[in-house]
């Protein structure tokens, strides 16, 4: 009994001693960890202030589009920026996309900008690391992946446009208020932008940024009358109230906000994705057809019989003859069945022309026979979900045997070879444009360089245009250039037509036919200076 009663007493004493002895230790540990926490929190706060990552225009990423990535650093050492994106689904499992960039950093403020393709992702995480530590990190949940294209507004009153956009575009509207300084000047960065509204109530954007937005496929709507600070934008209009520029268009209207948004919805711009899909409907790469099975059976059987006959009837010379015959067959067979190269590659370019600019979208198909790791120096993204990684050296893919890959490069700008001058198509390129096709009318002929007169030839064919014609409005011109290695398909939309219900466009500011190339010589008027 005593023993039994003594036992709880001993236990209680032991606990008491442990608590008494352990409390200071616990206290120290607690304070220590608190200090550590506070310290790490301070460090994090300090680091958070030095690193700022922005993905997408004005920090709004668009899934399934090329997005600008901007990293702002202050007093940060050279580091590696890593993005891990899981583009898989429940069915496919994880399909990783890893992006690593070396960031130089240094004293003071430094920027790092890059264009990255953001697929529809399940998870996205990023971190900026040095060899010793993680400088910053973050993540974006998959549910935040939004494929809706952005409607940017440059205004002092963005809320006033919300209802107009909702009425016109419904749930597909994704209105983003953006500061002029945040507009990228790379046309490829506007892949995920549908429209850009400028009403002159905020600071004037850079001319290059507006031109890049329009040529990148966005519809730029200018709501007049614009203040003098926005006068240089008239250079893009060239005296007209609507103009096409690259893959997009610019509209100038002196109208209410809802009418302006309505006008945006009426402007037809080429759907790059649809046109690109039509372009690669047929395989770009034509691989050599393998030898027919029946032919192969006959050849190998004949070889085997010949070999046996030589060995059976020829004696020692027969053995030598059989060896020589085998060597000969091996050499001939190798040359007959070996493909010319381990990898076949073909590129098709879709050129969307508007005014003097064309937006070039190149799609490359690769067919590899052996398993290989493909490294491209240029950024590219696969059209079908595929694991790959990208770093400062380029874009890398691991391809299995006999697999093909369709790659899309970011948008690029170039001179429009096919232009409409006075409503007439003119070839301003160095090569002949073949088989010009006017949607709604049919095949017209070829255009020699510098010419607007069609040349007819016996080899004319409109077959190539049949897949594209249903995707574009009537009055669109289609052409292919006289390609040797890379074929370019030109798409030239008709002039922008707005509904008559909209108020007539007034003459834009600075109208009267500005013909200056806005990319080379933007006016430097003292009045326009902020």
């Amino acid at each position, binding site marked *: 009994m005593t023993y039994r009663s003594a036992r709880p007493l001993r236990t209680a004493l032991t606990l008491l001693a442990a608590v008494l002895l352990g409390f200071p230790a616990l206290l120290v540990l607690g304070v220590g960890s608190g200090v550590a926490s506070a310290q790490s929190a301070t460090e994090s706060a300090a680091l958070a202030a030095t690193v700022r990552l922005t993905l997408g225009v004005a920090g709004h990423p668009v899934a399934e589009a090329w997005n600008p990535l901007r990293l702002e650093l202050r007093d940060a050492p050279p580091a590696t920026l890593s993005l891990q994106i899981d583009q898989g689904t429940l069915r496919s499992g994880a399909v990783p996309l890893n992006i690593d960039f070396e960031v130089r950093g240094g004293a003071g403020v430094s920027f790092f900008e890059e264009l990255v393709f953001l697929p529809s992702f399940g998870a996205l995480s990023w971190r900026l690391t040095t060899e010793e530590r993680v400088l910053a990190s973050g993540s974006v949940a998959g549910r935040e992946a939004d494929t809706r294209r952005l409607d940017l507004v440059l205004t002092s009153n963005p809320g006033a446009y919300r209802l107009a956009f909702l009425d016109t575009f419904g749930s597909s509207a994704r209105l983003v208020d953006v500061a002029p300084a945040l507009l990228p000047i790379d046309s490829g960065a506007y892949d995920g932008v549908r429209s850009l509204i400028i009403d002159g109530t905020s600071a004037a954007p850079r001319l290059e940024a507006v031109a890049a937005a329009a040529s990148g496929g966005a519809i730029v709507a200018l709501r007049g009358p614009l203040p003098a600070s926005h006068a240089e934008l008239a250079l893009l209009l060239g005296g007209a109230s609507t103009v096409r520029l690259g893959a997009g268009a610019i509209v100038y209207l002196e109208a209410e906000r809802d009418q302006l948004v309505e006008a945006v919805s009426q402007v037809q711009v080429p759907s790059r994705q649809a046109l690109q899909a039509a372009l690669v409907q047929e395989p770009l790469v034509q691989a050599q057809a393998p*030898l027919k099975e029946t032919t192969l059976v006959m050849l*190998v059987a004949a070889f085997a019989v010949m070999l046996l006959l030589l060995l*059976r009837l020829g*004696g020692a010379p027969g*053995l030598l003859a059989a060896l020589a015959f085998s060597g000969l067959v091996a050499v001939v067979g190798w040359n007959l069945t070996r493909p010319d190269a381990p990898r076949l590659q073909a590129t098709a370019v879709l050129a969307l022309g508007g005014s003097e600019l064309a937006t070039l979208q190149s799609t490359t198909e690769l067919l590899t026979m052996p398993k290989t790791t493909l490294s491209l120096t240029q950024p590219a993204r696969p059209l079908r979900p595929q694991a790959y990684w990208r770093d400062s050296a380029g874009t890398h893919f691991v391809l299995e045997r006999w697999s093909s890959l369709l790659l899309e490069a970011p948008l690029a700008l170039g001179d429009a070879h096919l232009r409409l001058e006075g409503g007439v198509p003119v070839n301003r390129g160095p090569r002949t444009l073949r088989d010009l096709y006017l949607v709604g009318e049919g095949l017209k002929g070829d255009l020699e360089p510098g010419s607007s007169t069609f040349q007819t030839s016996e080899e004319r064919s409109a077959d190539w245009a049949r897949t594209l014609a249903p995707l574009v409005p009537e009055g669109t011109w289609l052409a292919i250039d006289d390609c040797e290695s890379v074929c370019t398909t030109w798409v030239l939309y008709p002039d922008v037509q707005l509904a008559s219900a909209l108020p007539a466009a007034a003459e834009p500011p600075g109208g009267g036919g500005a013909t200056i190339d806005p990319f080379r010589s933007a006016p430097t008027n003292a009045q326009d200076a902020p």
Partner: protein
Amino acid sequence: MRVLEAVTWRLARPDMAQVFVLFLAAQVVVVTFAWPSAGSLANDSWFALAPSRNAFLALAAAGFGASQLLIRVPGQLDAAGAGPHPLHEARYTLLALLAWVPLSAPFEVVSHAASFPATGLLGSLLVTLVTVPAYFGLGLLLRKLTALLRVNWLLPLAVPGVILLLAWLDMQVGNTLFNPWAAALAPSPYPLVAALGAGLTLWFLLSPWRRPRPDVVAAAGAHR
């Protein structure tokens, strides 16, 4: 010329001629079935042909090795004196088997060219070249072991059994050391192991101390 005639004679002997016909027929069947049918581009015929060819060669080499009468220390004629010296027989058999490699090479060359694997053709041909003497030596060893253990009846089962055992061992190790099937497909330590085996076999068959005594050979010639 004498060696060439001896090899030809060995190749034409029914046991080897029949197996060679079977070998060629097997390759014709494999390459035909593995060849892509109409409408398909991907050619994977080499991935079926190369391992089956190497495995067939290994099995045939081990089988013919096990059929040699090199149980005792050579230098003596076989008891009946009716055939060539067992050492010569073994050498010519090995040479004849080695002749199979270039004779059947066009099958592999053509399928390799059309399949375009990442593995080089020379490496694949080298693997088959070292497989034959290595497994021939394994057959000789098996024959000796079964004779020593007085279980000669086990030999027909022992040859394929040991090859399967080695393949199983490879799978346990997780590397290709002995498996002739997997060796042709990808770079592995197999060629080194097989080259070691081939070297031992050649040393066993060609070393001077194993050379038949001239007087015995002469006596054998007189006897024939």
